């Protein structure tokens, strides 16, 4: 803590308790503050003074977390940046399937698609297909970010099979899932889900969903890559949030 003590002279604040109160006050004044118009004017401020102000905040954080903690937090933030949508999807699957009735001989499914892929063996031929109804019902146990990430991962996991026209009424695999999502989410029953009902209002295909949510390329064409990129960029934060819910609520997320 020598560095922090050394910095006290710069800050005109001479005890740790005062600095902690400063952080608490900043937190109270920052969270939930009402929306105000930014009506700023530009002034010249001595750059040295500006640096001192930056140190005030940095040191406050250091005192809250400990100087070593700051380095660890920096690492944690970098680690969060590396998190991908697939990591969030695995966390969601562990929440959905960690209860005993959903586990497979004690092992948990690591994805919604994994649990809902059916394997038939006929005449020495291995045939795999997706249980669209089951995928939709599992997705409907989720809301908000958890749903968005799980849905994105279902699409990613389907890979080249996503557009195979083997679904209900000649629909593709993913459009069949969307068919059941739209159907179940709006019916009063176990699967009713207002979040999904609104997200898929009038949506009949993946392209409809992408356009409705503004995941488009430069030409305005639906782009799954844009959806995946958006999810990947926020994956760290969402994983932290979902993990926290998982820790506090067990397997129940919706």
């Amino acid at each position: 803590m020598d560095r922090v003590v050394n910095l006290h002279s710069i800050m005109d604040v001479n005890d740790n308790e005062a600095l902690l109160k400063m952080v608490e006050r900043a937190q109270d004044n920052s969270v939930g503050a009402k929306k105000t118009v930014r009506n700023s004017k530009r002034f010249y401020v001595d750059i040295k003074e500006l640096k001192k102000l930056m140190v005030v905040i940095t040191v406050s954080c250091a005192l809250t977390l400990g100087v070593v903690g700051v380095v660890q937090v920096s690492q944690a933030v970098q680690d969060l940046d590396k998190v991908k949508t697939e990591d969030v999807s695995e966390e969601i699957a562990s929440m959905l399937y960690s209860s005993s009735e959903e586990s497979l001989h004690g092992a948990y499914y690591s994805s919604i698609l994994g649990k809902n892929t059916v394997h038939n063996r006929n005449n020495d031929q291995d045939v795999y297909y997706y249980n669209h109804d089951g995928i939709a019902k599992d997705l409907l146990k989720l809301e908000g970010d958890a749903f968005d990430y799980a849905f994105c991962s279902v699409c990613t996991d389907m890979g080249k099979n996503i557009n195979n026209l083997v679904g209900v009424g000649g629909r593709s695999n993913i459009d069949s899932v969307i068919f059941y999502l739209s159907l179940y989410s709006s019916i009063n029953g176990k699967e009713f889900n207002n979040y999904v009902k609104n997200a898929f209002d009038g949506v009949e295909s993946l392209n409809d969903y992408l356009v409705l949510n503004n995941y488009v390329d430069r030409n305005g064409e639906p782009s799954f890559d844009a959806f995946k990129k958006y999810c990947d960029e926020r994956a760290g934060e969402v994983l932290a949030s979902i993990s926290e819910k998982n820790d506090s609520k067990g397997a129940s997320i919706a």
Partner: protein
Amino acid sequence: MNVDVSVIDNKSYIEIDKIVKNGKTYVYLVNSIDKTDFIIRKLLAENGEIYYVGLDSKKEFDLALMYFTKKHEGVLSENGKEE
């Protein structure tokens, strides 16, 4: 150095930094008179105006502070002697 100064709750705050993270722009403001008074806001553009918006939770405050700490960790390692 020219910086933006805004009046919030009848107090004058200097915008000492902006950090864009995951589509959100966090603004770090320090009271121009009382250096121990700092706040964090998000910027929101709406109907041709720019607004300061409060953070959603204490967790978001901690996260925003972490982003700042990460960006300026050099200040700590150099004992605040940056020029």
